């Protein structure tokens, strides 16, 4: 923790100056907070207004009569096509695909990172570079060939198919995170363990894994956000019955004709974002801690 509020220079400026500085600091931070909060504020207030009030009122005004109708509509009644079941069924699909995909890609990332950081062999750096470059491939490029591959594997339109795609394109980032974290663990540790007769698996299981909690949190947050919010893969590789929540949200929000129910749109958006928001709010502290613990040291 670097803390300058109590250092010598400021103390000389006297208490009044110090308090003014403090207030200025809080003021700036709050101004930034306004910038970040504005869209959420607009979404939230809009979702609580009636359509009539949205049409007549100002964008930034608070709702006159708070109503949760839009929320219940978005959750269980909004029409996505001819089915009017709201986001509920799709929410479940998203969970079914993101939980395994996050777990598998995190596990693979941990193993890959462990090998690349601590069990180097000839060419392991090259493999790492190739994986890293894979993070940058624009996803639009892979849609069509991947569709073909899923067809061949008989996984087209299924949840396992979507899990497969997300794992493949998640490995690059998860490997990067774990590799950068494990690189900071002294090689002597591994050497000593080897002398004691421990093998590849034993060392990973009893030395590295217990140390990995912070970086697991970082990786899980990153992967969960990416997979949960994905639309492009979700819309391309699903079929009726396996569509994730982002596709349903898009169906509610992006209808090109007909009356737009903005309050339902906004409520649906917030509902669809609930799991990721929750993850950030609950695990945000560990996120910074995990990053601090070494993953960003490059």
């Amino acid at each position, binding site marked *: *923790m*670097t*803390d*300058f509020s109590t250092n010598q*220079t400021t103390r000389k400026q006297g208490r009044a100056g110090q308090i003014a500085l403090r207030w200025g*600091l809080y003021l700036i*931070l709050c101004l*930034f907070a306004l910038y*970040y*909060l504005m*869209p*959420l504020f*607009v*979404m939230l207030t809009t979702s609580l207004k009636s359509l009539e009030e949205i049409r007549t009122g*100002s*964008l930034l005004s608070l709702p006159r009569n708070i109503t949760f109708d839009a929320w219940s509509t978005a959750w269980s009644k909004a029409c996505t096509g001819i089915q009017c079941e709201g986001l509920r069924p799709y929410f479940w699909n998203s969970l079914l695909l993101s939980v395994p995909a996050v777990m598998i890609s995190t596990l693979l990332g941990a*193993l*890959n990172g462990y*090998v690349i950081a601590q069990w180097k*062999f000839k060419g*392991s750096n090259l493999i790492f*570079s190739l994986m890293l*470059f894979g*993070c*940058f*491939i*624009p996803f*639009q*490029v*892979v849609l069509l060939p991947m569709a073909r591959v899923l067809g061949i594997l008989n996984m087209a339109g299924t949840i396992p198919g979507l899990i497969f795609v997300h794992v*493949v*394109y998640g490995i690059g980032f998860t490997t990067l995170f774990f590799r950068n974290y494990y*690189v900071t663990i002294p090689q002597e540790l591994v050497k000593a363990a080897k002398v004691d007769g421990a*093998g*590849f*698996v034993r060392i990973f299981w009893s030395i590295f894994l217990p140390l990995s909690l912070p970086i697991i949190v970082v990786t899980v947050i990153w992967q969960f*956000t990416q997979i949960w*919010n994905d*639309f*492009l893969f979700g819309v391309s590789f699903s079929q009726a019955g396996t569509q994730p929540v*982002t596709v349903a949200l898009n169906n509610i929000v*992006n209808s090109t004709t007909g009356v737009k129910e903005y309050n339902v*749109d906004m409520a*649906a*958006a917030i509902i*669809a*974002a609930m799991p*990721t928001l929750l993850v*950030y*709010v609950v695990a*945000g*502290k560990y*996120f*910074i801690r*995990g*990053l*601090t613990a070494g993953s*960003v*040291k*490059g």
Partner: protein
Amino acid sequence: MLKWFEKQVPKIVLAPSFIAILLFVYGFIVWTGWVSLTRSRLLPKYDIVGFIQYERLFDSPRWDTAMSNLFIFGVLFIVISMFLGLLIAILLDQKIRVEGVLRTIYLYPMALSLIVTGTAWKWILNPGLGIESVVQGWGFENFKFDWLINPDYAIYTVVIAGVWQASGFVMALFLAGLRSVDDEVIKAARVDGIPTTRIYSAIILPSMAPIFLSAFIVLAHLAIKSFDLVIALTGGGPGYATDLPATYMYALAFSRGDIGQAASSAMVMMMVVFAIVVPYLYSELRAKND
């Protein structure tokens, strides 16, 4: 035999991921390169006709716009996000009482999908609905903020929303960096009476060089892949003034049935990525060999 097997375990562990990347990243890049040399329209075809798709691409004014937008957007997005992220991280690191709350506020945009925050931004930036009309309502009649509808400035609104989404994550990276700087060094500097600004510019920031690099890579990757952002905020408009290569490619491949042309634009995009990432990888590898 067992000994040999033991030695091969790391390679065996790495193999499935490596093969997957080889096939599904590099294999697909080769596939795209092949298709970019064909006349594919609705679905991919495999009869090579030469470089005609690239000629068409470079002849298209819309592609020019998309590439120069990528440059404007990319530079501003990366620079502003880095600056803002660093500034907020430094301010937050001054023993702020409600740090947890503020940090969550700065970080949450990363959790939201742009499919809908785009709508909210569209309203906020719309002169008739959002900031302009609200400020005018406060009595500042001459206040103007109409970038969203001005073809020359619309790309900057994309920057505003992009920075909003990504800068919190960069802030987290920098905050983590500040927290991992060795306390002893700073204490020593303070005892020597070195002013705070000097401590930052001469000691703390240089020690965070790797973090700048990580942040740059994350941001560059977001800038190049930016797609939802533009679709949700401007739909590429006014006209096609806010088109980016990713949206151009998507439009050609999926709404215009011109897959050959889309593939050629994808290859050009990939070359841009290559030009940015390879120097980074090179420095990564060299650092490791030290």
